[in-house]
């Protein structure tokens, strides 16, 4: 199994604060990984470093074997447009462009603009009828679906989604998750940052961060775990020497915090 993403002891440090502390992680091609944790745990910082939108203070990030720290700004932009599809919690659509134009913007920076293809992408997310509406004329769920269409239009190898359902109601949350399922079935690697147990539960594998430190890892899909281990994949780990940190080669299980809150279960050690 080829590793699409390899994080090697990466840290992001702001003064005395370690937003991400010495994390090592490998993600194979086609895996659906959820990064969970409470607010301020370093999830988004980690996603930004994986998505070439931020650089680690220490350590190395490899995408398809290419070390990102060796790339200049222009090469990083190339990696973003060729390999990565981004879905943000706050949608981030260009406000003066219509839904289809927002999708076409991603095509424009990637290769060649194709309006028909952009409309097909919107059709996939159920928004063909709203293609010529401005973001201000769309609901939150519709805007997020435009974001998903924009993220998948260039058929990226990796979809990075930061709290993709954070601003959505249950109905739209289900639509978005179904879209992710389809993408996953097509072999797209998906990394979702979330603190929603339902969203995290859809992933094959979850890792948990607490104050920037890896504190747990669990698999929701045994077959995927077996395949990963068979291919030489190792559990994620951290070099941070703090209590509760997952430092060795043994994964520390955990219960989803939101699920725990709902069921009253305590975190498993």
């Amino acid at each position, binding site marked *: 199994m080829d590793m699409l993403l390899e994080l090697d002891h990466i840290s992001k440090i702001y003064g005395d604060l370690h937003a991400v502390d010495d994390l090592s992680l490998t993600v194979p091609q086609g895996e659906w990984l959820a990064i969970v944790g409470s607010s301020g745990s370093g999830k*988004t910082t980690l996603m*930004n470093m994986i*998505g070439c*939108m*931020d*650089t680690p203070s220490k350590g190395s990030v490899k995408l398809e074997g290419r070390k990102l720290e060796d790339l200049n*700004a*222009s090469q990083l*932009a*190339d990696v*973003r*447009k*060729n390999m990565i599809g*981004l879905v*943000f919690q*706050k949608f*981030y659509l*260009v*406000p*003066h*462009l219509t839904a289809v*134009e927002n999708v*076409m*913007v*991603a*095509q*424009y*920076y*990637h290769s*060649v*603009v*194709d*309006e028909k293809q952009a409309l097909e992408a919107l059709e996939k997310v159920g928004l063909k009828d709203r293609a010529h509406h*401005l973001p201000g004329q769309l609901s939150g769920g519709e805007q997020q679906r435009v974001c998903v269409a*924009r993220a998948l239009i260039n058929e990226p190898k990796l979809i990075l989604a930061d709290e993709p359902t954070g601003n959505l109601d249950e109905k739209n949350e289900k639509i978005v998750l179904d879209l992710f399922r389809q993408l996953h079935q097509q072999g797209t690697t998906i990394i979702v940052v979330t603190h929603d147990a339902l969203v995290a539960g859809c992933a094959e594998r979850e890792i948990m961060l607490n104050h920037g430190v890896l504190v747990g890892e669990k698999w929701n899909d045994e077959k995927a775990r077996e395949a990963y281990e068979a291919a030489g994949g190792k559990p994620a780990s951290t070099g941070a020497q703090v209590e509760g940190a997952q430092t060795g080669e043994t994964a520390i299980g955990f219960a989803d915090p939101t699920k725990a809150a709902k069921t009253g279960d305590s975190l498993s050690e």
Partner: protein
Amino acid sequence: MTNTGMFFRMLFSAVFRRRSRAVMAVVASLVGAATLFCLAMICIAVPQQMNEEMRAYGANLIVTPAASGTDGKAGIDSAMVAHTTEMVAAKGSEKHASYRYENVRVNAAPYVMAGIDVAEVKNLNHHWVVDGAWPSAGKVMIGRDVADAMGLEIGGRITIGYRAADNAGSSTSTSAPSAEGAGAADAATEGETSTANGSQSSSANVSSSQPTQDGRVSSDIMDTSGTEFRVAGIVDTGGSEDSIIYATNDDVAKLTGTTRGVDVIEYSAGTEDLNALVASINDMTSMHVKAQPVTKITSSDTRIITMLQTLFWIVSLVVLALTLVGVGTTISSIVSQRRNEIGLRKALGASSSAIGAEFYVESAMYGLIGGLIGTAIGFGLAQWLCVAVFQRSIGFNWWLAAASVALSALVAVVASIPPVHRATRIDPAVVLREE
């Protein structure tokens, strides 16, 4: 759709779907362009207008027959007047008038009579105050001093006598201008001494071979014959013109019984380099004429116009600098508001240069639209100012208009460089996190 098509689609969407901000940017450029164009037009037009106004105060160049040679007696013939005028006209705008001077007697007293083309003299000397009418056939216009000396009024009669002996000397001795002369009248009256008035000068010439008393020959009182003319008007300039009797060229020819060339040509030349024009005429020795600048008028012209020009340019530069700061700040602020959009585009894989191109072209468009409208408004303002102040309209300067529009576009682009550069230089995650 091609990528170029998408580029323009994004551009037009940014302009037309963000109308309020686009209007703000266009208005900022418009104000800048209007101010710039109006001031520049005034800076260029006002000195020109002032120059033309100055020209209305008489000649700044006089041409007389060369002092040496026999042609001096015959004056400057009409072909040479035309040739000299061509030379002056080749260097800029010109107005001219020619004068033929003769020594005449009124009640036996010597005076200077000038034969003129009324239309030419009228056109050249706007500052002359004429009470009554200009000369016509059988009618003369006399200077205020002559009228006062003889108690003449408009409609009165004057008998003018001509004696060949009075004009026996070179005609240039009657009409040769002084080096600092202020025109034909000075030229005629000051004579070679540059100090005497017309009567005295003429008297001196006439009496060169006869005994005199109080400037008049002893036989003056004996001879009062001549041709009778009616006084059509009295001219009052406060200068030496007030001592001269003006008649039409035909009347002077009839009175003297001879037709000859003129003694002085006065020019109001619009050339920027008057001395070069004088030198070029004097270099043509075969023309047998001598050109001299009227220093008094020329230097005051130059001084006032230079002062005005300097004042306008200083005011213009200060206003321009303030306007550019205003335009720059507005455009810069509008671009800064789209910082998150720049971050998003970077996150989608746009290179800094691609983002820069989009924003710079958009800013240039604001500058271009604002520049075009502003230039038109600026011209209207400049036109209105010139009509209100100088009662004259100004021509549209296409080069200046093109420069004004181009500068507006340039300022808009330059103003957008810092915010675009700042937003594209940092990681997109940092920009997006700021929202």
